[in-house]
């Protein structure tokens, strides 16, 4: 059984990588800068149907249409912010994997930092408390001594 494992792993790996490439159509641009912009934008835009995928990875019909839209806009000379504006005008900030910083998205941006700071503070406090030995009040100390002596 063990001898099959590497072969099995290889097969699984190949199947997985085929799958990743099979879903999305290839689009070629004459201008390498445009090609780069296209790849960049479809990696940054989120698919609304399968919400944890970007447009570049999604097989959904809508993702395909939005890739077509991005392709056409780039061919017509649109820049990144124009495409982003186009998408957010229709689908809202949700379509951006990197949402803009504003009142409604503030928790998204500073939430992790706040949690990190709170976490560090807790660790520091706990560690400090462990380091110090609490002094017993005089009264209790005498009591303890008495108990030990008896």
């Amino acid at each position, binding site marked *: 059984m063990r001898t099959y494992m590497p072969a099995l792993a290889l097969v699984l790996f190949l199947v997985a990588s085929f799958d990743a490439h099979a879903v999305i159509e290839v689009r070629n641009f004459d201008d390498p800068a445009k090609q780069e912009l296209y790849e960049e934008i479809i990696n940054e835009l989120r698919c*609304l149907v399968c919400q944890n995928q970007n447009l570049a990875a999604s097989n959904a019909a809508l993702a395909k*249409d939005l890739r077509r839209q991005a392709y056409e806009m780039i061919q017509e000379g649109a820049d990144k912010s124009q495409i982003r504006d186009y998408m957010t005008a229709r689908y809202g900030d949700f379509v951006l994997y990197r949402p803009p910083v504003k009142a409604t998205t503030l928790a998204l941006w500073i939430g992790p930092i706040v949690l990190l700071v709170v976490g560090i503070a807790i660790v520091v406090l706990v560690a400090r408390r462990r380091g110090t030995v609490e002094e017993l009040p005089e009264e209790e100390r005498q009591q303890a001594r008495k108990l030990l002596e008896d």
Partner: protein
Amino acid sequence: MKGKLKFWLPAGIFVVLTVVLGIGLTLDPREVPSPLIDEPAPPFQLSRLSDPATSFAPADMRGKVWVLNVWASWCVSCRAEHEVLKVLAAEKLVPIVGLNYKDRPQDARQWLDRLGDPYELSVMDNDGRAGIDWGVYGVPETFIIDQQGTIRYKHIGPVDLPALTQVLIPKIKTLTQEASRSSVRRS
């Protein structure tokens, strides 16, 4: 004091987390708020399903409250919603326009023949471009547009009877009342 904190701090964190996660459970992540609410209805000019030689544009509905319903013959939940739309159509409150989204016209016509047609008319958005302009991402979707051509409400997913009677119809009624009041003022 310290003992109290030891009890109340975790208890407080627990309560806050429970409330936050509890609210999270009641939300549907598929419902993405549309930026198009209270915005003018995006224009399109599309051929009618029943007669491709004639076309329809949202501007044709100026002065009327109307409903745009995005549907397709391939959409499973549209079938359940279809019966509800027939109920709405029977009320004769507002015209329902169908946006037949990324469908084959012959399939769509067959679907209406077989299941009945609640739509005043349906237009064909075969390549989904009008759908993108309207921010459509999950069929079915239903929009209510007021007499000024502004989108006032959007329902994502199939409209069921409770949603129809408790949300959509009251919304439509207030909008039509608004419309008739303003037309009285104008005349």
